[in-house]
């Protein structure tokens, strides 16, 4: 009576998409390790990695060890971490807002996080002495998290009228928040000294330069909650696509889902901004491409968005490092060049319904 279903096709596609995502990510990671200003090719890097794994770092020539293990490897690691966090945050946020246009970078969450981080950099100098020394690597991520959370709450509050989040309101409020946070950041830039200025440019345009394992591990604790919660949120986000009342009818504790989602996304985006500045559009691009390729089911979409986000950011970083070598492009500019046209296309496609 209940025959094996042809409807199983989307699910298998979902699993395949995660596998394909892993392969693409591995390829991108290896490309990122093999290409760079130092002219150390794929073969040399593969050999160096093998030696380091097998015989330890001491067996390597110090220059190669420094380039591969201290510069490229942590940078690739950070790119994967930040890209995955951004891709996943975008997918979850779009699910919560029930709208494919909700990108943390676009609606003010990232700029809220950046403002908080910049505040800590500029005004924190005076208070540095008061802080416990061990707090250093965590202070920026935590500040960015608080900033991102505040921005998300304000956004959700202002864009929601009697339980419904209006797309138009969300985008407009996002524009206003981004402008406001940008202006306040500008004000801080105005009072900053030269050393701080260089650090600040990095926040507003994004970049993975100066990546270290310390930075990566400083950000990781704030990215983990979203990664751990995501598998449990997938079913709720699927149901939420039908509407909040319908999600409740389907057994979802909607308020809890929203609270958890908003908190975890803010933490994840905050941590990403803290280590890499504002990198827009990854959270828009990755889930969007995947919805077209494998469908909107969040059970496949969430892990695949993390993988594709990581892959995209690795490639963007590769471009940022190599296009104008030995100089470096800010990575946020590259992702915007790729993402903005897609965003425009999304808007045009939905132009008829946006006024609603």
């Amino acid at each position: 009576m209940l025959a094996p279903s042809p409807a199983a096709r989307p699910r298998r596609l979902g699993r395949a998409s995660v596998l394909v995502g892993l392969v693409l990510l591995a390829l991108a990671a290896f490309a990122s390790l093999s290409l760079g200003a130092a002219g150390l090719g794929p073969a040399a890097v593969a050999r160096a990695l093998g030696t380091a794994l097998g015989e330890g770092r001491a067996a390597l020539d110090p220059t190669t060890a420094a380039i591969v293990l201290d510069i490229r490897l942590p940078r690739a690691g950070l790119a994967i971490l930040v890209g995955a966090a951004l891709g996943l945050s975008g997918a979850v946020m779009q699910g919560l807002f029930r709208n494919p246009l909700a990108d943390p970078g676009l609606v003010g969450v990232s700029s809220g996080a950046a403002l908080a981080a910049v505040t800590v950099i500029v005004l924190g100098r005076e208070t540095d002495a008061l802080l416990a020394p061990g707090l250093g690597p965590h202070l920026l991520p935590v500040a960015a998290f608080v900033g991102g959370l505040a921005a998300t709450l304000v956004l959700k509050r202002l864009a929601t009228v009697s339980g419904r989040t209006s797309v138009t309101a969300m985008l407009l409020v996002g524009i206003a928040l981004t402008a406001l946070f940008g202006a306040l950041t500008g004000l801080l830039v105005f009072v900053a000294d030269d050393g701080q200025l260089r650090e600040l440019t990095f926040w507003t345009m994004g970049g993975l330069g100066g990546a270290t394992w310390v930075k990566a591990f400083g950000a990781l604790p704030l990215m983990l909650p979203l990664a751990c919660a995501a598998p449990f949120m997938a079913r709720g986000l699927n149901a939420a696509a039908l509407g909040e009342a319908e999600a409740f009818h389907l057994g979802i504790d909607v308020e809890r889902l929203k609270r958890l989602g908003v908190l975890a996304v803010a933490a994840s985006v905050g941590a990403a901004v803290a280590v890499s500045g504002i990198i827009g559009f990854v959270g828009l691009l990755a889930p969007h491409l995947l919805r077209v390729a494998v469908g909107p089911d969040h059970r496949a979409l969430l892990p695949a968005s993390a993988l594709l986000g990581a892959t995209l950011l690795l490639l963007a970083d590769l471009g940022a490092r190599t296009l104008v070598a030995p100089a470096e492009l800010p990575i946020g500019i590259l992702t915007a060049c790729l993402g903005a046209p897609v965003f425009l296309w999304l808007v045009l496609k939905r132009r008829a319904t946006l006024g609603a």
Partner: protein
Amino acid sequence: MLDAVDCSVSLGGAPVLSGVTLRLGPGEVVAVVGANGAGKSTLLRLLAGEIAPSAGAACLDGRPLSTLHPRALARRRAVMSQASQLAFSFTAAEIVAFGAEAGGAPRRLGEALARRALARVDLAGCENRPVSTLSGGQAQRVHLARALAQVEAAERRGEDGGAAPRFLLLDEPTASLDLRHQLHALGVARAMAARGLGVLAILHDLNLAIRAADRIVALAGGRIVADGAPAEVVDDGFVARVYGLTLPVGRAPTPGIPFILPQSAPPFAPA
């Protein structure tokens, strides 16, 4: 038993329901009728556990709905709301499978139940079509199928020894359906009741309500003004109380079944 006991509900400060008492039992089809704004959808949302009464209590087997976890509720009742806006491009089968999974079916069984529920609402062959490409009436039937899959999955799961009755709450299940599918949808509702489910459906077509329902509950101004078997409650006075219309209620062609013929209404004119 799904009960509303002396329930009052206010939305945005305005009273929508006042002192409503209603019991939905297993095996019966109850049609809720009334003018626009009479409080029909609010009554359904109250019984679904979506809103809490400001006075009185809404209970499932004597336990207030607000004390039950959404997941536990989802295994006892399914709801089809009025046309909802779908955020992403899910296929018909995926949407219906969400219902089956909410009812507690594992994923593979959920997919099989989804196909069966879609066939049940005459949508076999549309499984892999995005809901956004379906017509309004077809999309409506997808959501009916979702509710069916949900109660069916819950039944199969057999929690509470499988003996506890399930409930199906349908907000205008026949809206935007063609005549054939209106009758078909109500046939499905009757079949579910025959299996022991309690079905409550908001209906606008009185004649359909009379044919399909064991009981008709009429709301006017947030109060229940009639509750009983169609043959007993539907008369000229009923139509006047519920809709403020002077319309003669006929008897026939099937003996004893009342029917309303809008042709015999006074000509359209300013009241």
